[in-house]
């Protein structure tokens, strides 16, 4: 089976006010099969969102993208705008973090969803598109769809808004759904509902998904595989189970420590320090200033991503010996 999405050595550079270029994404290889769910996990600034936005050429002006990203074999990097527009919203749907700002506040929700349909199907009338929007609302379990499509975004609750956003992303039955922090702006209970919805959709529609989040707990129950990112690189990559139970990278371990355990007894652990700015990356492994296991080599040399135990890991001193402790 050929992969739905495959990136190779994907790099993104930004320029600051002084005209200095810096790499925000330093060569990322990812692959996703049709119907598969990939979770990309990392703190803000790790490059996880921009990597996905780069695929759709949705980065702000002035970003320089290189490398390769193929969607069903078609190269996305450098694709002409007219062709990438045919993919956006049609074959690849997007769900964003804050549905309140992601919707246009002065247009009715129904019109915004109908637009997503008519943009790709010129023959569809506005009326039919609105009917379709109603059906989509039923799909994502929004009650009273006929009434809801005539409302403005501010008249929706946060959870309902995110459902509507998902409905919009699904409007053209895409093969790939990119969800960028879809639950971050929501209350905890609503978060669970949205995740359930995504899980159901995945089961019913068989869509491939990329789920971007800073919260490993979000991807734990839904992703088939996980890529952990730090400082513009993938630091650990593997199946969800392997990343959780055979954690090799100290950073992943830290993130797992940061997951509140469900029985309520586990204390919330934090990784000390903050992620580095892309204009001021530490030498060697960019995680070394925050790493508890740091040694001399970590400051000197950037580790490569290579197979270590059950997962791929970019670390000079992987933690493969810690399995048992975490599994418990």
């Amino acid at each position: 089976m050929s992969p739905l999405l495959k990136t190779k050595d994907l790099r993104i550079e930004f320029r600051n006010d002084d005209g200095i270029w810096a790499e925000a994404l330093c060569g990322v290889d990812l692959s996703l099969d049709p119907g598969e769910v990939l979770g990309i996990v990392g703190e803000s600034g790790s490059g996880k969102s921009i990597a996905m936005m780069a695929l759709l050429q949705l980065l702000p002006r002035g970003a320089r993208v290189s490398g390769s990203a193929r969607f069903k074999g078609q190269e996305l990097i450098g694709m002409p705008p007219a062709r990438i527009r045919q993919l956006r919203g049609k074959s690849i749907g997007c769900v964003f973090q804050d549905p309140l700002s992601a919707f246009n506040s002065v247009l009715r929700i129904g019109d915004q969803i109908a637009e997503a349909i008519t943009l790709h199907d010129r023959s569809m009338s506005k009326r039919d598109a609105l009917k379709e929007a109603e059906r989509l609302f039923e799909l994502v379990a929004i009650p009273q769809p006929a009434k809801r499509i005539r409302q403005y975004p501010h008249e929706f609750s946060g959870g309902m808004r995110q459902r509507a956003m998902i409905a919009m992303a699904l409007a053209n039955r895409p093969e790939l759904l990119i969800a960028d922090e879809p639950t971050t702006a929501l209350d905890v209970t609503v978060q669970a509902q949205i995740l359930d919805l995504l899980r159901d959709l995945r089961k019913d529609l068989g869509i491939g998904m990329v789920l971007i989040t800073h919260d490993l707990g979000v991807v734990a129950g839904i992703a088939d595989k996980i890529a952990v990112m730090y400082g513009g690189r993938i630091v650990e990559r593997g199946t969800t189970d392997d990343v959780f139970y055979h954690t090799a990278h100290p950073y992943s371990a830290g993130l797992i420590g940061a997951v509140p355990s469900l029985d309520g007894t586990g204390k919330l652990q934090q990784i000390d320090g903050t992620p580095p700015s892309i204009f001021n990356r530490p030498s060697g492994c960019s995680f070394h200033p925050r790493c508890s296991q740091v040694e001399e080599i970590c400051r000197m040399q950037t580790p490569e991503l290579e197979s270590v135990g059950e997962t791929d890991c970019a670390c000079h001193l992987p933690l493969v010996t810690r399995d048992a402790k975490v599994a418990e």
Partner: protein
Amino acid sequence: MADISAPVAAPARRSGGFRRTFRKLPVTAIIGAAILLFWIFTVLTVQFWPMAEPLDMVGRRLQPPSAEHWLGTDALGRDVFSRTMHGAVWSIPIAILVVACAVAIGSLLGAISGFFGGWTDGIIMRLVDVTVAFPPILLAMAVAAMLGPGLTNASIAMVIVWWPIYARLMRAQVLEVKEREHVEAAIAGGASPLRVLRVHVLPLCWTPTLINATMDFGQVVLLAASLSFIGLGAKPPSPEWGSMISEGATRFYDWWIAFGPGMAILTVVLATSFLGDGLRDLFDRRSQ
């Protein structure tokens, strides 16, 4: 979104103080400053320039521009270029004076209003509300006419039109600064209110006022010229830009009479908005 914007918005290195700050001014702002400096230079030196006196009849009447009279001559045979340059001696100092008075009065009242609050605040702010309820030019016309035509009264009228802007600005600033810790500490330490206002509050409040004053300078030149154009400001034969255009308007087939003073006003207004914009962007960015 935070992910995407973070690297781009990464703050530029903040160093180097004054000189470095001003080197970041856009080109347009520097051009604006240069034009304003040119006009100030003109005001100071124009009497020494080797050219005709503005009030002397130096040539035939109503001659179009020529090598001898760069902007032609007016209905009385006076050199329009010389008059335009001398016009700066009227317009620029008056505009400076008007802005200075408006800033002084407005800032003082605004500071009192914001710092003391209560009924003082109420009265001053209602006065502001009523003043800004009038379209500026009509109020200026009414005041200037009632006081009697003339440049002094026109200037008073313009100060009356402009002070409320600075009162509001200063009041807002003072209200914000008043809440800061060092001010509260000073009050708690028993300093007299006036001293707190003068020493601890006001020094932190000037930036928006100065930027606005820069921007308004051109508008004041414009309003002064408008009043003169109407006949409420400078009187002929003084070479004031507005009254020169007014002379040109009665003879508009001889377009060059009005051309020079109009261009002069345009350069001043453009220059101040360039410079004001540049300064505002600069301080906005710095205050972030």
